[in-house]
Every structure is written in C-alpha cells, then in structure tokens.
C-alpha cells in the first residue's frame, strides 16, 4: 500500500504533517455572489466548494418530487467540475454517488430548516465542487450551511461536518490504532473513515456515512473524534458568519 503508515507510529505525524486531531486549513466566505439569494465559498484543505442558494421560491410545477404542501422542499443539485480531481473526468448527472450525496444534504436540511415557514415553495441549493481532496460530503454540507445562513433562511442550528478515520487498514486487527481527524483524498483511499455531521455544538448526529469496513470496536473512537471535529468546524463557521455580520453592522462593506 502506498501510504506509509509505519512512519506515522514513529513521529505521530501524518503525511501532510498534521497530528491526529488536527483539521486542515478551513476557510470560508459568505455572500460571494451578488445574484444569488445566498452563497458561500468554502475550502477544507484542497477541497473547494461553492454553494449558491436560490429561494424560497415558487414551487416548480409537478417537478418537485416531494409533494408536501405545508412545507418548503429542499432541492439540491451537485455538479462536480471536470477538473476537480487529479485526472480530468466528466461525470454525468446520473452518477449514483453524487445523487446519494444530494439526497443526504437535502434530507439533512429538510429537518434542520424551519421549512414550515415557507409553504408551497422550494429552496434550491446548487453546489459546485471545484477541487476535491477528501472530505467532499463534509465540505458540501458546511458550504450549504453557510449559504443558507446567508440567504436568511431560519434554521435550528448549524450543520457542521467533518470526516474521521482510523489508522491501519481494516484487515489488521491492530488494537492500538489511533483515530484521525479530517482525512485528505490519499488517506481516504487507504483508511477506514466516516463522515459525520452534527447539529451545532451538540452531540446530535444529523448525518453519518461510512463506506469502508471497520471493526465495531474502533467505531466509538472514530465517532467521538468526528463529533469533536464538528465542534471545531462550528467555531470556524460561526466566526465567518459573525465577521460578516459585524461588517454589515458597521456598514463598511456589504
């Protein structure tokens, strides 16, 4: 396996020089696009995501899949740019993995937003993945939260997401495996990992997705680290929102 996990146990540093509980550089901006109702740009390491929100707007005729009349529907469109990966690849709109992510994001926000305030309407989230280097679903969720805040749609709390993994691949029954926080693409290829999204600073898990095999005993540690990471993410997102808010209050730059 290309990832040299042996060096990890010596220096306790990962390939990119982080410690086990360190997030990558997480930066974000909101209100990046004037024509959208809400927009955000978020970087988690080299994963870069743009989110724009339009709505709540009138429900598109018959097109909306969920026919709930007393609530707003949340529609999510994800487009993965052809240049986002290492090799140029075009993905069709029917890619099941992408559609699954869209369903997940839509369902997470459907319960988190006060959709009952906007009957007969649709909130459309349009997400663009510009560069992908691991933690894609987490980045998409975080960007969506920020854009929805920018759009001024009332929500219960931030949905903050990050990934957590475990050193040493699933085949070995290594009991001393350490949990890792916020994996990059290379680590995601080699190690078991999960994506977790929590509601605000609480321990309530809104999204939990794991696609790799792992011993059940490791799960608790990974989940704990993930939930903890989400709290760190929340701090960063909150800072972004507050900074923007204070700038509006000062009236310096809208």
């Amino acid at each position: 396996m290309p990832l040299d996990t042996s060096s990890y146990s010596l220096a306790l540093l990962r390939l990119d020089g982080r410690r086990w509980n360190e997030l990558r550089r997480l930066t974000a901006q909101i209100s990046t696009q004037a024509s959208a109702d809400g927009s955000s740009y978020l970087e988690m390491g080299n994963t870069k995501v743009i989110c724009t929100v339009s709505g709540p707007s009138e429900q598109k005729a018959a097109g909306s899949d969920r026919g709930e009349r007393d609530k707003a529907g949340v529609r999510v469109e994800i487009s993965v740019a052809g240049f986002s990966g290492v090799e140029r690849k075009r993905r069709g709109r029917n890619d099941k993995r992408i559609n699954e992510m869209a369903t997940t994001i839509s369902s997470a926000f459907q319960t988190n937003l006060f959709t009952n305030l906007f009957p007969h309407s649709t909130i459309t989230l349009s997400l663009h993945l510009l560069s992908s280097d691991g933690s894609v679903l987490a980045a998409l969720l975080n960007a969506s939260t920020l854009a929805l805040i920018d759009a001024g749609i009332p929500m219960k709390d931030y949905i903050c997401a990050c990934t957590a993994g475990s050193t040493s691949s699933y085949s070995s029954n290594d009991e001393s495996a350490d949990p890792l926080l916020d994996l990059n693409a290379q680590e995601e290829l080699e190690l078991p990992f999960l994506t977790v999204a929590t509601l605000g600073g609480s321990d309530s898990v809104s999204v939990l997705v794991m696609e790799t095999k792992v011993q059940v005993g490791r799960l608790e540690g990974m989940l704990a680290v993930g939930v903890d990471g989400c709290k760190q993410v929340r701090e960063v997102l909150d800072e972004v929102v507050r900074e923007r808010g204070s700038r509006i209050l000062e009236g310096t730059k809208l």
Partner: protein
Amino acid sequence: MPRETAPSLNEKLFFQKALEENLRIDGRAFDQFRALELEFGDEYGVADVRLGKTRIHTHISAQVTAPLPEKPFDGLFTLTTELSPMASPAFEVSRPTPTELLLSRLLEKTIRRSQALDTESLCLLAGQKVWAVRADVHVLSHDGNLVDAASIAVIAALQHFRRPDVSVEGESVVVFGLEEREPVPLSMLHFPLCVTFSFYDLGGGAGEEEGEMRVLIDATSSEEMLRDGGCTVGMNRHGEVCQIAKLGGVPVDAVVLLNCIAVAGQKVREISDFVKGRLESDRKKRDKGGWMEELRAENDRVS
C-alpha cells in the same frame, strides 16, 4: 406521477400516541423483525425472501466475459435493483425514485464495496477471461424495509449459487455443463447484512429540550413514511461494520447511534444463523440421491 398516499392526520396521531405508550401498530416489540421467510428455487442462486408483506426475489447468474482493462485480475460483480410498479403503484419503470437510488447504493456499499464476494477468485485468465456474476434484485411487494430484506436475499442467493466448473489449460478455457461436472460455489469472504433503524422524534418540536426518541427496527412502509429519520447499518457476524448510512433526517445523539450499531450486530448474528440453517436444509433436500452422497465431503466444506 402516482404518489404513495401519505398517511392521514388521524393515522399519524394514532401512531404517535401509540409510540408514546411504547406500542407499535402491529404489536411487535421495537427491536423485533417481522416473520422472516427464506426459500430457494429449483435452480441454483434463486432466493425468495419474505419479511412480513415485503417480498424480494433475487437471481444470481454468471457468465464468462473479458475483465475491465484497469482490473485484469478481478472478476465482475454487478448488482441491479428493480422496483417495478408491481411492488407499489408509486414506482414507475423508467423513473428512478430516491427509494430505488438508496436501495441500490446501500446494497452496493454493503455487499460489493466490502468485498463480500471474492472477485479475484473469479479470474480465469488474467486480462482475458473472468466470470461476471450478476445479482438481479426484484422487489415483488413493497411493505417497508427493502434494504434489509434485499441484503438477506442477495447474501443467501450468493451462498446458494453454484457456478459451472471450468478447466483452464494454457490459453483455452473449457466450461463444463451442470451435468458434466458438479458446479462449484462462489468464494465468499464474509456475509454482510443490513439492519435499518427508524427514528421518531416525540419531542414537542418547538421546545428547546431534547425530544424523546423512539427507535424502531424493520419498519413497515407506513411506519417508514412517518419516520423522522433512518439509519442503515451494514455488518457481518464478526462484528465488522461495512457501512453506515444515516443520510440526513432528524439529528440523533451519538450514543443512541452507537447503541443501534450494537443492536445491529446482534440482529445480524441472528439472521445469519437463520440463513445458514435454511441453506443447510436446502442442501439436505438436494442431497437425497444416492450418487450425490459421494460428493458430500465437498459440499460440507462449502457451506
């Protein structure tokens, strides 16, 4: 587009009231599966699973093809799911619904991505000829919990399936008919199954305090329509979690989730034992003939 009729307000309130009193509409315990039935067809690799009123038919087939150029040593394994209008009027033939998307993705992740089927063992001639195993999942009747039932059906059918024996000499591959040589079973690395939990938030909704949570297993389709969130755990009997999918929905405390995973492990062991028992009795049924008796040793090793 025909839509599933949503439960009426009365049904909804009745159901919630019952949950508050720790009752389910059909009288089951919260962590109880419906009656599980598993039957095998006359052919190898045909399994029919009934879980209450949900019924799923799975058919495994295999043929020799060329491997993918990027993976010359691996056989192919494809899972296709089909939700026909027969299962529920809400399904249309050419239109994938979110239900279908999730069903196929979850099966894919639980069974294919976790390498339940040893695809390397399906290779005949590197880069030229491999077995392509195909699992067709047909939902005959939909009354909730498709994922769990489908995972049982696929895993049971894969274990039941026998592929024709082959001999490889140099570059030539000879496939023997079922009469010529005893067909061989597929090599499976582990047997993952899914358990789906449904979450119901009984909290006042507007109140700040954490609402009371009810967790159900094996929800019927009306229970599924009323749930606030779901979580599917794919595990094998050795306590390895193959996938977790809590795709949005109501937020659930992390401790509750860990609890669910523990429960899932226990359920998976129970169902695995059940499947094993059924496979055993099916084998005995087929074993009646005298000449089959001689092949017993081989079969024992298999199951």
